[in-house]
C-alpha cells in the first residue's frame, strides 16, 4: 500500500503534495498562470514553485490583480520580489473600474470587491487565455473552501458550480477543459494557517513586513482597526489616527483589512501568538461577513 514514509514531517508531506500539484498543472495545461496576491500564502506558493521546477524557473507568469487600494508596502514588496527572482509579472487593473472611480469608500466594499477584484480577475484571465490559474486559498480558511476541490473547474464564464464538482481521487487530477473553460488550482488546499507560518519560519521565506507588529497609524471602524495607509482614507469629524502596535493576519485592500494589536515581530513570535489566539484569520476581512454563504456566492461569481 502506498503512502508516505513515516519519518516525513507534516510540513514535508504538505510541501511534496503542493509540488506534485504544481508540476501536474505545468505538465498537462497549456497556459497556466499563478495568481500572486503578495500575501503570506502567495509567498509560500511562490516559494514552492521555485522548488518544484528547479533548476528551471517556474514556467508560467505571475498575475497580480491590483485594485489600486493595496497597502503601499505590498506593492513595493511585490516589485522587489519579482526582480530578485527574475520572474514575469503581469499586473491588471479593471479599466472600467478606474474610469468610474470605483473604490471602497465611494461604492461600498461589495461593489468594490466585485468590480476591482472579481471582474478584474476574469478580465485578466480572459485576456491571457489562461486555462489554469493557481491560487493560494486553503481549505481551513472558510467552510465553503473546505468543500472545494484542489483542481476546481470553472465554466467559460468563470463560474464555480459546487454541485458539479469533479470527484478527486488519490493524486489523480482531471485537468481537461474545453476551449474557454479553465481550472483554478489550489496547491495549499491542505495547509493550515499554522502550517504556513511554520513553513515561512523553517524556509526563511520573505514576506511583507505588514505581518510583523509595529507602531502604525490606525483608526477604529465598526470594531476593526483600519490603517491609514494614504490620504484617500476619509476621516470622520473628530477622528484622529493614533499610533498603535499592530500587525495583519491577512492582507488585502487596506480599507477592508483589519489589523490586530500585537507584539509579535518575528515568525516564532507569530506562531506562539497563534497558538493562543481565539479568533480566525478571516475575522479581519470586512468582506467575508455579509452572510454565512457570502464566500460561496462570491466564488460562484468567479472570485478566487
Amino acid at each position, binding site marked *: *500500500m502506498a503512502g508516505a*514514509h513515516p519519518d516525513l514531517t*507534516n510540513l514535508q508531506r504538505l510541501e511534496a503534495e503542493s509540488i506534485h500539484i504544481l508540476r501536474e498543472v505545468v505538465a498537462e495545461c497549456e497556459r497556466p498562470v499563478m495568481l500572486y496576491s503578495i500575501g503570506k500564502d502567495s509567498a509560500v506558493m511562490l516559494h514552492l514553485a521555485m522548488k518544484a521546477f528547479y533548476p528551471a524557473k517556474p514556467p508560467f507568469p505571475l498575475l497580480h490583480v491590483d485594485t489600486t487600494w493595496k497597502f503601499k508596502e505590498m506593492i513595493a514588496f511585490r516589485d522587489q520580489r519579482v526582480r530578485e527572482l527574475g520572474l514575469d509579472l503581469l499586473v491588471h487593473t479593471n479599466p472600467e473600474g478606474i474610469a468610474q472611480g470605483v473604490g471602497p469608500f465611494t461604492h461600498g466594499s461589495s461593489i468594490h470587491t466585485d468590480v476591482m477584484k472579481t471582474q478584474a480577475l476574469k478580465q485578466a484571465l480572459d485576456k491571457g487565455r489562461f486555462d489554469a490559474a493557481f491560487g493560494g486559498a486553503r481549505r*481551513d480558511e472558510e*467552510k465553503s473552501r473546505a468543500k472545494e476541490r484542489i483542481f476546481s473547474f470553472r465554466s467559460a464564464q468563470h463560474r464555480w458550480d459546487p454541485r458539479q464538482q469533479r470527484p478527486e481521487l*488519490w493524486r489523480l487530477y482531471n485537468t481537461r477543459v474545453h476551449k474557454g473553460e479553465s481550472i483554478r488550482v489550489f496547491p495549499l488546499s491542505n495547509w493550515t494557517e499554522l502550517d504556513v507560518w511554520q513553513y515561512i519560519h523553517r524556509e526563511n521565506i520573505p514576506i511583507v513586513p505588514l505581518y510583523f507588529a509595529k507602531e502604525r497609524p490606525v483608526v477604529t471602524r465598526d470594531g476593526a482597526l483600519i490603517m491609514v495607509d494614504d490620504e484617500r482614507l476619509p476621516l470622520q469629524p473628530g477622528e484622529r489616527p493614533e499610533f498603535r502596535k499592530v500587525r495583519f493576519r491577512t492582507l488585502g485592500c487596506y480599507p477592508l483589512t483589519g489589523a490586530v494589536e500585537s507584539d509579535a515581530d518575528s515568525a516564532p513570535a507569530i506562531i506562539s501568538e497563534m497558538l493562543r489566539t481565539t479568533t*480566525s484569520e478571516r475575522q479581519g476581512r470586512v468582506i467575508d461577513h455579509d452572510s454565512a454563504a457570502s464566500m460561496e456566492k462570491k466564488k460562484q461569481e468567479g472570485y478566487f
Partner: protein
Amino acid sequence: MAHLLRFITCGSVDDGKSTLIGRLLYDSKMVFDDQLSALERDSKAVGTQNGALDFALLMDGLAAEREQGITIDVAYRFFSTGARTFIVADTPGHEQYTRNMITGASTADLAVILIDARRGVLTQTRRHSFLVSLMGIRKVVLAVNKMDLIAYDQAAFDRICADYRAFARQIGLDAVSAIPMSALKGDNVTARSTAMNWYDGPTLIQHLETVETVERPHEAPFRLCVQWVNRPDLSFRGFAGTVASGEIRPGDSVRVLPSGRDARVARLVTHDGDLTHAAAGQSVTLTLDHEIDIARGDVLASPLDPPAVADQFNTTIIWMSEDPLLPGRPYLVKIGTKTVTGTVTSLKHKINVNTLEHLAAKTLTLNEIAEANIQLAQPIAFDPYDKNRETGGFIVIDRMTNATVDAGLIRFALRRSENIHWQAVEVDKPARANLKHQKACVLWFTGLSGAGKSTIANALEKKLFGLGRHTYLLDGDNVRHGLNRDLGFTDADRVENIRRVAEVSKLMVDAGLIVLVSFISPFRAERELARNLLQPGEFFEVFVDTPLVEAEKRDPKGLYKKARRGEIRNFTGISSPYEAPQNPELRIDTSRASADEAADLILRLLTERAMLGGH
C-alpha cells in the same frame, strides 16, 4: 509513527457524525470565537437542535447543504494535538453520495465508522464498511455512539461489536477497534468516560494519536511516475515526480517502463541541494547516468521487482456520472501520470453495495460498482491496487464532457493481452488500394432516420462504380439483419452496433475498398471511435442534415408515426438523442441539394483529397 493521519468519518446525520467532528475540532481548539458566534447565529436561524449549537452547520459549508440539512460533498477539516496532525474527510453517508465517500476514502489511512448504539449494525453500516474495504483502508474504528441513550450498557455494546466483527471479517477488515462513546456528552472522545468503567481501552483521540496505519510503503519496491521532464538547458535533463513507494539513492538502478530500459540514478536534485536518499511521499527530480528516452507517463521502478506491463485488465469500477457507462465506448483512462484511451470490454457483474450480491449488468448508472474488464489503447506499467494505490488506481474521463465519470482499481492483467499478437501480413493496405487505382477510405453518413443517408449513399456508389472504383455500402438496416441481429436499440446496444460496423469498415479499408457506411450513428463518441480506428485522412464524416420536422414529414418507413404513438422505444430524435457532428468533413443540407447533387459534392471532395487516382 507517522506525524500526519488522514482519516474518513462514515455515518449519517442521525449517528451523530457532525457532533463528533465538531467536538474533536472544538476540544482541540480549532473552532475560533468568531466561527463560534457565526455557528450560534446559524444554529438559531436554521439549526436542527432547537437553537442549541448544531455542529452540523460547522461542517456543512455549502448553502444547499445548510438549507436541506444534509451533507452533500466531502469536507476536509484539519486539527492537531500535541502528538499528531489530522486531516479529516467528512463524507456524506447517504447511498446517493457514494461517489463522494469514495473520493474521501481514496486518500485516507483509517476510517471511523459510526453506529447509533440504539440501532446497532444497519444496512448503511455494511455499505460504508464495504466501501472502506474496497478502497483499501484496513484500519477501522467502530465508534459506537449515543451510549448515554442506552444507559452505558456494556452487554449491548459487546453485542454490537460481535455483530460487526463477524461481518467485517467477511470483507477483509480485521483491524477493528471498537470504542463506546457519547459525542454529545463527550464520553470517550477526548476525555475518558466516568460512566463506563467497564471499558478500559483508549479514548477516540488517544487511539487516533497512537494507531500505526502506514503499511511501511518505503519498504515496498521503488515506483515513481514521471510527471514532467525538466530541461532548462542542454546540460540538464531531470525527471520530476513523486516517489509512489519505496526508496531511492544515487547509484541505484532503475528500470523505465513500459520500454524496459535500465539506467542508474546519478543525482537527486532539489532547490536546497542534492539528496542522498528519497522515500515514498517525497517530490523529487532525478537525473540518470546516461541518456535514455523517458517521457511523462513512464514509470521508473526497481529492476529487482518491477511492475507488470499490460493493456487488458480485470478491474473494479465505481461509476460516478449521471450518464450511464456504455461498454465499448472509448473513454480516457488516467493512471499515475499517464492518460490513454480505453474501453470497458465487458461487465462481469455489478455489486449490490448493501447485500454484496452479484447482479448481471449491461450498463452502470451513478454510484454503481462492478467488476469489469477494460482494454487500453497502449500497454501501461501497473501494480494491483491492493499492492499499490498509486500505480493501481485510475480515473476515467468522458472525452466529450471532460467529466470524471469513474474510479477504478486494477485487480490483475488478463492473460490474453500477452498471448494474442497482431499477425503481420506482407500484402498490405496501400498495395491492395494501388491495384485498384484508389486510396481506401470510409465515407460515414450520419443523420436522422429518413434524412436521406441511404439514398445519397446509393447515388454515390453508382457513380463510383461507373468510374470503375471498388466500393462497398454498409447499410444500417441490412447489417441489423445479419451481423448485428442480436442487438436492440438501447444506448448500450447502439454503441455496440456502431463499434462492430466501425471494425468491419476498418477491415474493408484494409482490403483497399472505398466503404460507404450509412448509419444513424447518433452519438459523437462512437463516430469518434470509428474515426480513431483509421489513419488520418481515411475517414470522411458526411452529415446528412435534415431537420427533424422535415424527416418526420417524409417518414418513408412510417417509423416516426409509430414512435410518436409510443410503439417504438428509444427512437432517435423522438425518445433518444441525436448528437449532431461539430466538424464533419462535409455537411449536406438536403433542403437545398438533391441526392444526385449531394453525390457530386462528395465526389468533388474525394477528388480534391486525391482519393481517386487516375487510370
